[in-house]
């Protein structure tokens, strides 16, 4: 479904990623773990076109999307719930969700039933239903995170990129976010999850990659990574 090959990317002259290769098979949840500054967010930003990769291939269903502007990549079915949530603060919750379906509402992707999906989001995130007319900027951090995820799902994406969905949330909300991710996994949504809570991410994922200073330091089935002594020492001991 999503195949990243030898991705090199960064900001200006500063290279962050050095030849990173990742494979996200259809219907699977793949997680990318690593310490702060390892390049996890940069990887997602390069995949969704928020930054232009320097070189490498990013194949979405066989189409090379490397270097395309982000709106075109989204129209090919890539949804990205970005770091820091990035909801639209002056728009109501419902409008934020509808904008997630923008390509469907404007004919760039099959329309399907947007209203039904909207209601499905409200079922998945009941808190958003209570707040549906409220401006997104007035929501709490946890609610904004739910909104960012729901907004991305409104695309009915082929692949969903989730960047640090637990960041800045209270422990109880972190659990809730992971429970939601587990539910999305049951619904066979293809996901690439970037997380600081490596243990929780590996618990829920099928497969994992470890990123270190912009290079892959390891990969394997999530179960196996979780029991790898080196991974345990570096990422699981301190973070959870």
């Amino acid at each position, binding site marked *: 479904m999503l195949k990243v090959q030898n991705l090199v990317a960064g900001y200006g002259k500063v290279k962050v990623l050095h030849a990173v290769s990742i494979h996200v098979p259809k219907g699977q949840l793949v997680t990318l773990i690593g310490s702060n500054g390892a390049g996890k967010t940069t990887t997602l930003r390069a995949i*969704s076109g*928020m930054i232009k990769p320097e070189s490498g291939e990013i194949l979405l269903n066989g189409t090379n999307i490397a270097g395309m502007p*982000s*709106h075109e990549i989204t129209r090919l079915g890539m949804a990205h719930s970005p770091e820091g949530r990035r909801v639209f603060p*002056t*728009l109501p919750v419902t*409008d934020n969700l509808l*904008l997630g379906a*923008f*390509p469907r509402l404007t004919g760039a992707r099959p329309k399907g039933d947007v209203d039904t999906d909207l209601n499905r989001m409200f079922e998945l995130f009941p808190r958003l239903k209570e707040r549906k007319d409220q401006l997104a900027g007035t929501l709490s951090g946890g609610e904004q995170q739910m909104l960012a995820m729901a907004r991305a799902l409104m695309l009915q994406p082929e692949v969903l990129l989730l960047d640090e969905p637990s960041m800045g949330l209270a422990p109880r909300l972190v659990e809730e976010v992971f429970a939601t991710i587990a539910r999305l996994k049951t619904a066979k949504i293809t996901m690439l999850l970037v997380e600081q809570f490596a243990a929780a991410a590996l618990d829920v994922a099928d497969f994992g990659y470890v990123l270190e200073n912009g290079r892959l330091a390891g990969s394997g089935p999530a179960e196996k990574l979780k029991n790898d002594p080196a991974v345990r020492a570096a990422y699981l001991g301190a973070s959870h």
Partner: protein
Amino acid sequence: MDLSLRGFPLVRVFTTMQNFFQILVSGISVGMIYGVIAFGYQLTFATSKTLNFGQGEALTLGALVGLTVVNFLIGMKLGTFAAYLLALPLVFAFGLAQGSVVEWLGVRQAMKTKSEAGWIMATIALGIIFKNLAENIWGKDPLKFPSPLSENPLTIMGVNIRPMEIAIVLGALAMMLAVELFNRRSIYGKAVVATSNDRDAAGLMGINTSLVITFSYALSSLSAALAGVLVAPITLTGASMGAALGLKAFAVAIIGGLSSGMGVVVGGLILGITESLTGFYIDTGYKDVPGLILLLLVLSLKPAGLFGKAAIKKV
């Protein structure tokens, strides 16, 4: 003898009030014109944090194109009012095209290279080019724009109001209301708001944000062109008509706040009315002073504008 002496102050009070309201009326119509132009500044500032400093010239061109079309249609034996109404869509289309050109030539490149001052110089330069173009096509002398409405004022409670002044207020409000409705109701309008909120995140929604910015420039010039054809029948039309209006509307946008829709209406009215009052009661030579003092006050005390929420980007 006794009677007239006693009556005199009352009459004076009455005419004083009448004068005051008369001044108010002309202040309001001028203020609404400032408001529409300032609204145009807001549109592009919202999506791209840039402004078209050639906004005054967009107004000039809109008015002159309108004049040519109206005169042509009158030549085709159409009534002035019908000609004016028929000319409006053409003026709007011209405004949209002109604004797109400004964005395309002046702003896009500067934004791509993250140049802080590039778009300022480029939009000023384009403004000068447009002005020269207007001088060459329509000449340097002011022209008379045929008034679509009667030029005989209506007298309401002793105050003379020209029908065109009412049209200005209604036209300005209709323009702003239409944009507001578009932003709130249509998914494309929401895409514009989303782009204003967070351009990168809007891109992730599949919104072509470059196109949104081009569109906001197009709409911005359309509002200037509308202001042009609204004000032209009550002033003189010519290549230099827009320069002062564009500059004052810029002051209005700063006073009202570049991020507040209501701010430009109130800011426009404040400037229009203080100008008219100063012009009448003090001296026309000083009529620009109070507005500019207000501008300086706002800049030093409340830089985001009277109704503004966010800080103005330092340019």
